């Protein structure tokens, strides 16, 4: 029986938000096969977009977000897989006096299913939910480790196999984000002062285009990704970001995975080219993968 490894990576694209990415490929874990992964991520930015103004901030210097995540993917059936991920996140600013934050962030669960096959074209869908694992501080941005919202996401993946193990793939997803209760009892949303601690975090969508080489468990690809909120306000002049902000990012990157046996490694790098209300981050994630059979 061929064990195929399902690979997962996380991309820390936003200023604080850790966004878990589902596998975008056509491979599935076979029934009762699991893949465990341990991933270290480092995301940092010196420049950011205050609304659309690109600037640096000597009172922050370089803002770094490090994460350590544990992930398990499991084959429920050959065509339906489940994934769970738990990240621990730590932030730090190289200058100024803002206190770094750390803690367990949001636990995520996804179900991924193959929806159709037509010759070389494959369609997949994933459903995901996430919820904060701890009552971490969300309003102390950009130091906060996450946005604190429960999320529900749906993703559609189209994958097309080319000759010589090459492929192209397109992905679109929509992320519904719940209200967040902050510690304070009022905040500005755009020009409106809301006299409540309940914050409507804008929903978001994400689109991705990938191309690369894949053969058995080994993979090499490049990608471009665009993340944007549906509505939201902008960072005010010379002010800190907030949960209501309409974050937008366009990034490019590369991903590679090598797994000769049950042990494997993966690496991902990405860089934000353009954005709004977001950091121009450089993201690096390296992972250690381990494939095993359950039962």
């Amino acid at each position: 029986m061929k064990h195929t490894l399902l690979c997962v990576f996380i991309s820390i694209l936003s200023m604080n938000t850790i966004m878990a990415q589902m596998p975008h490929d056509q491979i599935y874990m076979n029934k009762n096969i699991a893949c465990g992964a341990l991933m270290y991520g480092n995301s940092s930015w010196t420049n950011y977009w205050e609304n659309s103004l690109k600037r640096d901030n000597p009172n922050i210097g370089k803002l770094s977000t490090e994460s350590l995540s544990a992930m398990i993917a499991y084959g429920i059936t050959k065509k339906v897989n489940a994934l769970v991920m738990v990240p621990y996140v730590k932030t730090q600013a190289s200058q100024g006096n803002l206190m770094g934050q750390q803690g367990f962030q949001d636990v995520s669960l996804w179900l991924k299913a193959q929806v159709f096959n037509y010759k070389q074209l494959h369609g997949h869908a994933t459903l995901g939910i996430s919820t904060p694992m701890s009552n971490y501080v969300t309003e102390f941005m950009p130091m906060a480790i996450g946005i604190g919202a429960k999320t529900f996401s749906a993703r559609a993946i189209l994958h097309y196999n080319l000759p010589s193990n090459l492929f192209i793939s397109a992905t679109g997803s929509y992320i519904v984000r719940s209200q967040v209760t902050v510690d304070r009892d009022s905040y500005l949303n755009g020009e409106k002062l809301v006299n409540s601690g309940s914050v409507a975090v804008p929903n978001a969508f994400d689109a991705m285009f990938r191309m690369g080489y894949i053969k058995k468990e080994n993979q090499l690809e490049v990608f471009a990704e665009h993340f944007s909120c549906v509505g939201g306000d902008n960072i005010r002049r010379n002010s800190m970001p907030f949960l209501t902000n309409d974050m937008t990012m366009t990034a490019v990157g590369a991903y590679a995975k090598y797994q000769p046996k049950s042990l494997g490694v993966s690496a991902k790098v990405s860089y934000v080219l353009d954005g709004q209300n977001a950091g121009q981050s450089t993201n690096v994630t390296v992972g250690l993968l381990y494939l095993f059979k359950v039962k």
Partner: protein
Amino acid sequence: MKKYIYYFITFLCFSFLLSCENTASEALLSPYVPANIDENAGSWKTFVLSSPTEVSIAAPVGTNDPTYLKEIDSLKNIVAPNLTNEQRQIVAYWGAGAVFRWNEIARELSARYNSAPAANAEGKYPVPDATNPLADPKFPFANPPYVSRALAYLSVAQFDALVSAWKYKYQYNRQAPGNVDKAIKPLLPMSNLPSYPSEDAVVGQASYVILLAMFPGEGPFLKSKLEECKNARLWAGMNVSSDINAGVSLGAGVAAKVMVKAKADGMGAANNQAATSDMITRSKSLGFTKVWTSQESPARPPMLPTFGNVKTWNFDRATLEAIRPAIPYIEGSAEFKKDYEELVEVDKNQTREQAAIANFWADGPGTYTPPGHWHRYGANAGFEAKYSEVRMARMLAYLGTAEMDAGIGCWDTKYYYYSPRPQQYGLKTSVGLPNFPSYTSGHSTFSAAGAEVLSAFFPQKASTFNSYAQQASDSRVYGLIHWRLDCTMGLKHGKTIGQYAVKRASQDGAL
């Protein structure tokens, strides 16, 4: 078969997405008949007016006069039958009370304008320009002293104008349209308060004048709110046009007098950066080995170093100096070391609860600041107690003047000692560091003054307000930006300042 299940799941999931709207809604407040309409408010002592009739208004025509009957007819046959839903919503909004809503509007503007100027390419911080308020940096930078002052003048103008309005209401005793003509069905609960001049128009016009002076870039916004405030009374069938027009005239006249006082209170000279070198010299002569320095990069000039010279409301200059808190602990003393160690412990092991308290009371950039926070609690308490418009304005005027006095007293203290912040000893902060000297804590001073005044007005809530003040004070230690002594002494100072406002209130004839 299986694939249909997947189609179904996909369909379900997108339906869920489309149906999911996340909005943070706020409760709409229901209008009330005041617990007491305060018939005698026309004789209450005002802050700025020398007498309640210092600004005069014309006598109204009688309710049998054809001009008046035409106004009544217009309410009945033109306004009421053509009301739109949008107009009804505006009526419901203003039904919470004009004083309540204008206070809320002022807090919103405060939050919107609470951004420190950004450094320019030369590393300098441009000073906001009142004659070009919407340029970058916007004018004003609505920091805590600025907001304390804006809200003080707003509430004082509302109060004086309403005392005057009450005087005329009972002098002319013209009844409300709904009482004159039973065919008029007002949309808001009605009392027996005479309606000439309209209290809402008085408050609206006075508020408009003060807020336009404080937020000069907001002319169109304020104008639209003023129009709403006045029209809502016609749409609701609560006032006729001549009630409104007389209110506008009175509100404008009183606000102009309050602005004369505002322009002469010394605020124009509150940002005298040239005064800081003498302040530093004095600090060193008092024994401070380390004085306050800006921790921002590039270094930012301190916030309003001479705000302490601005004229106070409820006590004089000699009193301000007499009640100034004593010199704080200086580096090298055992007491200083103890305060330092408390902060080091928080730095290492800040609990989630401490962080929450620090965040709740932070009231930093982009918020209405601590004076705004206390005005909100005051306005809400007055609403719950079903205060009349004039009693609401009175309570907020004492609260507002106490907050401004607290700002002046605290800023005087801060620049008298020019003491260093904990961040000058390597500590971080979980809320952001204000750019002015440490001792005493502004939050503690504002909060104790606020709690003292509100406790006098709402004795049954005194323990709540006092615990709020204590928590607001503690929050600055939990956020690591103040020494414990800054907070305890600030609380004490603020309480004393609040007592002067309470004493003044006890002598204004309203109790």
